[in-house]
């Protein structure tokens, strides 16, 4: 009798644990499913080297996705992200190659530029309270124009070795880019989970008025996330430039923005603010990159790419939302 109740309890508690895990880590579950499918059905997928490729491809977007997640957590959105990437890319390229400035200076300049754009967004959204969607859409256009004006439409390839070294120095099987991405993820994980800033941020995301009345520095937080997002965009821009060894004003772009937003949302971030985790974002990116990788490996017709990708992602999102409803 008592035994039976115990067992019942145990099973139910296991059950409970499983539920909770799926509820909080939908992205991981989706990833495992897709990954499993890939292992079983996609030729050439299951090679250590391919795994490495996927990680390399994911590293930069992960950084971007984390930046975007921060904005999404406040219920905002940053559509200027992709254009910011192009702008910072060309800034770094011009300074380092064309003007022959020292690498650190070029990088610093690019990061500052990115953060500055973010600051602009933040002030417009928080102080003038223009809807984030429109603000960042507008600044997106502006930044794109700026990038083209600065570059006169030119691209800058064959960048100096010491600049490339920033992202491409191999470390074991990895390279510095991957390490940077991991570092960023860890840092922001700690910030969100363990810091007063992170706590205040999620409170702000859930209920702006309550956190304001509770004496949270709402304006600071609100603006700061856009600055962070801009900064991360700059990081993305620099590392992407290094990755392709070519600085160009149309790096990133609108599609890039939407892809990382998609990744963030698959990762469990909510567009209504509050929710959003670093782990989720990381896996959100991995999911998309694995899918793309599989489509290429399977040698799907080039003009089917977009449709197939879209449909698979659609399934992922449906799963995510059904999970949210049911659990």
């Amino acid at each position: 009798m008592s035994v039976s109740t115990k067992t019942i309890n145990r099973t139910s508690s296991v059950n409970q644990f499983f539920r909770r895990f799926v509820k909080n880590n939908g992205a991981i579950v989706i990833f495992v499913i897709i990954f499993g499918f890939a292992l079983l059905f996609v030729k050439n997928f299951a090679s250590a080297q391919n795994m490495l490729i996927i990680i390399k491809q994911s590293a930069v977007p992960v950084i971007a996705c984390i930046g975007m997640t921060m904005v999404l957590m406040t219920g905002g959105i940053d559509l200027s992200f992709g254009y910011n990437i192009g702008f910072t890319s060309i800034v770094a390229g011009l300074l380092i190659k064309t003007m022959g400035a020292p690498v650190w200076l070029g990088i610093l300049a690019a990061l500052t530029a990115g953060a500055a754009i973010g600051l602009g967004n933040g002030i417009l959204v928080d102080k003038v309270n223009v809807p984030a969607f429109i603000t960042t859409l507008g600044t997106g256009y502006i930044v794109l124009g700026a990038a083209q004006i600065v570059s006169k439409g030119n691209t800058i390839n064959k960048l100096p070795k010491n600049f490339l070294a920033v992202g491409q120095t191999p470390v074991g099987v990895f390279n510095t880019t991957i390490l940077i991405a991991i570092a960023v993820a860890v840092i922001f994980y700690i910030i969100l989970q363990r810091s007063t800033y992170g706590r205040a941020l999620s409170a702000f995301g859930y209920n702006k008025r309550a956190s304001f009345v509770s004496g949270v520095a709402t304006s600071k937080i609100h603006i700061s996330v856009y600055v962070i997002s801009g900064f991360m965009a700059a990081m993305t821009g620099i590392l992407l430039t290094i990755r392709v060894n070519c600085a160009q004003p149309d790096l990133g772009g609108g599609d890039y923005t939407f892809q990382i937003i998609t990744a963030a949302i698959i990762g469990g971030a909510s567009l209504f603010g509050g929710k959003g985790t670093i782990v989720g974002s990381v896996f959100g990116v991995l999911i998309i990159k694995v899918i793309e990788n599989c489509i290429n490996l399977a040698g799907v017709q080039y003009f089917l790419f977009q449709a197939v990708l879209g449909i698979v992602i659609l399934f992922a999102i449906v799963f995510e939302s059904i999970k949210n409803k049911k659990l």
Partner: protein
Amino acid sequence: MNETILKMQGITKFIFDSEGIALKNTNVKILENINFDLRRGEVHVLVGENGAGKSTLMKILGGIIPPDEGEIIIDGAPAVFKSAKESKAAGIGFIHQELNLCQNIDIAHNMFLGNEIVKNGVLNMKEMYKRSRELLMSVGFDVNPKTIVRNLSTAQQQLIEIAKAISCNSSIFIMDEPTASLSQNEINILFKLIKEMKSKGISIIYISHRFEELLQIGDRITVLRDGKNSGNMNVSEFNYDELVNMMVGRTLGKMHVCTHVPQETEILRVENLKISKRTLPLSITVKKGEIVGLGGLVGSGRTELAQSIYGARQFPSGDIFYMGSKIRKPSPRSSVQKGIAYLSEDRKLDGLVMEMDICKNVTLTYLDRFFKKKIIFKSRETGIAQKQIDDLHIMCRSMYQLVNTLSGGNQQKVVLAKWISEMPVLLILDEPTRGIDINAKAEIYRLMDKLASQGVAILMISSEMPELIGMSDRIYVMCAGSISDEINKSEGFTQERILQGTLK
């Protein structure tokens, strides 16, 4: 004139586990075998603590949720409501606790939402405006039906809801704490209206926490406790202690304890503060260990004053002195750092972060003070939260329970907890016992007294006369955005005098 028109028999509602499956075999139930009847043209008052099941019962009657057992009989015929619409069709009008109008569209559109008047496929606005004006008149509210609801006061919106219910000629009205957010004279209007409705043979189920009200308009009282009938009573043979006994299962001691003694040192002094351009300047003071009541009608500017002091709201002119020194550019953040706490009127809107757990809510306010190094230490945090939960007897499964799953009373306690988890110097309470049950009320009163005797200066906004009179050492009465009267305990507080003040 006395036949029963509504009968609810053996209504039972089971509790659910996390998967949402009814637990039939547990002896805990949301509602257990409730019997309730309503006669034509009577006001049947339904009382009980929060969580006693009043709202659930009414939701069942309103067709919003189905009963698990039991039946509803209207005019002798059993009725089953699958949706709110069906119950409405059966002539049941539901006036909800929280307002139920679309703020963004105009009165007429709201009134006819769901049963619009259509002439060959197109909305017949002319007719709708005409009809809605008539209805508004019938509840004695003269307003242009083209007004957008957002621009109306809470009370006016309530009147519109009633008019709306009348428009679908309901014979039974459910009023769930209709006066929760009304000011005295608005309440009077409502009660006048209720009396008229009675005379028209309309019967009303009236849910309230305020005894003085049920004495004014009630005919019979049914008490619920823990989802069970715990007694009935005719208002004619009303007995306070017996009623409280039915509600809480024991007779309370004195509600309003008052052991604290005000000290001389002045904590807060407000000088010629104008809460808006169009109002007169006002001045108030609050002393150490003193509870200052702030009376007046809703919309008389009490909340605005509190928010101005706290810094959550800009004001055109005036000075605020806090512990002798002038506050420049007050803001919630600076106030929190200075030790000013503001318990807001609406806990859902700006009191709590409903999606976060108790622990996080409690520590939110003084986060920077608790964790100087910006890093949150779990042990420290849980310690703080646990202490508050114990001190305030917050009923919860664990400190990780989300606050939106708590009962109103417990939520209010959490709001208090988050403000007193560090002892404030000045505590501003805006309707501290709004919509919470009698037990929690008593506890909060005791707590206020304790804080005051520990030297906290308290400024309490309240619409409840007994509360105002019972707790305050001094009462300011506000009217049209400025102070109309100041009464000291020594002069003796009287309802009459306060009312005069509110109507000046």
